[in-house]
């Protein structure tokens, strides 16, 4: 499922990029995310807890980052397996930081989410809504962090 989203924040693009290009800080700000050990330069183990309607799924897996300093974009690939046989989730997310003047920054987010198992069966219609809500919380946390 493809989800297009984005936000604009009152902060300089360089500050926003500095934060978004630091995986550990991103994980701190993303609700439900937990960063584990570094596996290689670009890859970490990690966990994600998502609540979709009546379902709560805890995923364990890996997340890798591909930073592109030249256009201030980052591609994040996450793969996780749900605990207790709850199926799998896979996400590819590309974010780009675009300066709008000195103090205003737009971040575009294109993601492709594939879930299997019980979450696909029961919660698919809600994934978009849940992802929007998570982004809102993330932006809130981000705003505070940059303030």
């Amino acid at each position, binding site marked *: *499922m493809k989800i297009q989203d984005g936000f604009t924040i009152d902060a300089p693009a360089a500050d926003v990029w500095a934060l978004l290009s630091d995986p550990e800080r991103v994980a701190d700000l993303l609700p439900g995310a937990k960063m584990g050990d570094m596996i290689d330069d670009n890859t970490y183990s990690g966990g994600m807890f998502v609540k979709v*309607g009546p379902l709560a799924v805890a995923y364990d897996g890996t997340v890798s980052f591909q930073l592109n300093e030249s256009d201030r974009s980052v591609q994040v690939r996450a793969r996780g397996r749900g*605990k*207790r*046989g*709850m*199926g*799998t989730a896979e996400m590819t997310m590309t974010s780009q930081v675009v300066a709008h003047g000195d103090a205003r920054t737009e971040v575009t987010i294109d993601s492709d989410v*594939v*879930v*299997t*198992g*019980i979450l*696909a*069966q*029961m919660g*698919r*219609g809600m994934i978009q809504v849940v992802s929007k809500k998570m982004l809102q919380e993330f932006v809130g946390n981000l705003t505070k962090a940059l303030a």
Partner: protein
Amino acid sequence: MSDNGSNGTGFIGASLKRKEDARFLTGRGRYTDDINLPGQLYAHLLRSTVAHANLGSVDISAAEAAPGVHAVFTGPDMEGVGGIPTGWLIHSKDGSPMVEPAHPAMAIGKVRHVGEIVAIVVAETRDQAREAAALIDIDYQELPAAASIEAARADGAPLVWDEADGNLCYDWEVGDRAAAEDAIAGAAHTVSIDVVNQRLVPNAIEPRAAIGSFDPTTDVYTLYTTSQNPHLIRLLLGAFVLGLPEHKLRIVAPDVGGGFGSKIPHYAEEAIITWTAGRLGRPVKWTSDRSEAFVSDTQGRDHISTATLGLDEDGKFVGLKVSTQANLGAYLSTFATCVPTYLYGILFAGPYTTPAIYCEVEGVFTNTVPVDALRGAGRPEATYLLERLVDKAAAATGIDRVDIRRRNFIREFPYQTPVALQYDQGDYDATLDLALEASDWDGFEARRSEAAGRGKLRGIGISTFIEACGIAPSAVVGSLGARAGLYEVGSVRVHPTGSVSVFTGTHSHGQGHETTFAQIVAETLGVDFEAVDVVHGDTNAIPFGMGTYGSRSLAVGGTAIYNAVQKVIAKGKKIAAHLLEASEEDIEFADGNFTVAGTDRSKSIGEVALTAYVPHNYPEGLEPGLEETAFYDPLNFTFPAGTHVAEVEVDPETGVVELVAVTGADDVGRIINPMIVNGQLHGGLAHGIGQALLEHCEYDAEGQLVTGSYMNYTMPRAGDLPNFNINHNTTHCTHNPLGVKGVGEVGSIGVPPAVINAVVDALSPLGVTHIEMPATSERVWQAIQAAQAQD
């Protein structure tokens, strides 16, 4: 005795309260999950979360070591055990047999749909089994999926089975192609339609369950299972899968909470649970939860069709050609192959005299849950297509919708259709007239105007239909590829004191057999209704049987019981003649009494029964006892018919469809219990309305079921339904002694096109000519917007 087999005691035709309801309504029903055997273990079945993948490593070591776990088995452990068989061999146009791939009970090497069983975990408790299953590590090497008919038939589509080119199981046909095409080519008018008959989930209220056990003292396996046909399961599981003879395998289908066709097939779970119980030497129980049912119960319908009807100047149908693609799912379930062929293509005459008909069907494999029978099974799909097409023909020719149907009705019987069936009788004008009057069809325009004043678009729709029930005879279905006979068995045991046990090979899972069959026996044998009990669902108790589906139980199973009663009466006459010192030919039987004709000398059935078991004064050479069994193989299908009328109001701002009236005029043959018959009609109508307006089973392109819960699969609720206006015009079936036809599937066959015809009628002033099922508010709103954009 009257011409309809009645002794006049009044049980037949009476709305007696159902014998079974006391236990159901007080929570004392005994369903499979209510049964617990000593030493029982619990199974959890680990199912594929992906639609198509090679199975890499399957690591069960952590699960095996988990608390309470007794065993973990995967597909390769069951190698050597037979695969799940298919019940009907279909041949393609070129005479070649269908592609019939292997169907292992658990996946070996590959998974082909979400929900396919990969492993069984057996533990002390259900929770332990579930927890341990989560520890199994499966390396799914995912493959592209063919998750719909279109995707599976596209060039270069992923193959569900390597041996099935183009994912084609068969390419079947019925009727005379050249005759139909010639008739259409020479027709004054031609009308075409493309329709989708969407996939449905059966949703029986009781999820499936199974308990397997093995008795080492007798070497007998017992399987308790939620089945509509226990003897069929014994045949398939014993002969084809486990290699067990009948006397070493007992199948019990106790109280079963609805089936709608989804409990006909022999499921892999039945084989796995029975086999596992044998391996472990302990009883093993599995109970499906609702989420599991969504991805493991067989699903229904799922056709894409295109059809053309030719008409002459007067609106008479001259030729019909139908091309259908039917989704069979990833594996061939027991009756998957015959539902879209011999239960579908042969229905296209409907109640009409169309002289040339041709139907071709592609059976298509996809990476989805297997498809099998669902209430109506093939006949709703055919009826929907035909009745939508007839409405389009009326619109195209300017002939009134009712008139065009009447111009084409069959009125001479028996009638041989061009698609194999021969109708024995019917009176289609009578049910049509009844429905028009009961629905106040003629007063509709006033109601339309009144609704328009409230800003609502009101529409009325009609469907006139036949169904073919009580599928038979065995020799005919055998020649068409059926791998079983379709007769039924009834046994009537009159006990020494005159009470009666009736044993039937059919199975009741909501149909009320315990009542209806008791009414037949009480009336024909002249005993009290309370003195008759009906036994079903246990292969150790019942001589044999083929089970319940296709509205066959009364027409085939009821007739077998009736015939067994006649054998009892015939033997009773010999005993009574001896006691009364009269000639057997002079004995008449009525109201439970054997009487010497023209005298008042008689013996009651109770006296005769006692004599049969205490044969001190008894005819020489006659066996003691009073128990008879009849196998009944019907001479033909039965042909219930009817007219359904639906009336809707559409809100043009929101697209919301309100179903305001449903009228049925049905000919279901002779009625034994009107309350049960009307209950069946109500249930079928609700089911059909669910398909027309609400239900839709959908997969995404990867083969994930996205309508896998009641949050996104919409079942009809009471508030979605109007009061049903049910009417009967009864004609008797000519080839069974009770004159009965069948009723269980009527609503789901007849009403969907009536509802959609009503919605299209409501929207027709806006230029809308077709809408697909389910006619949800979104679809209706989109159709309105699209029509207005064209203006």
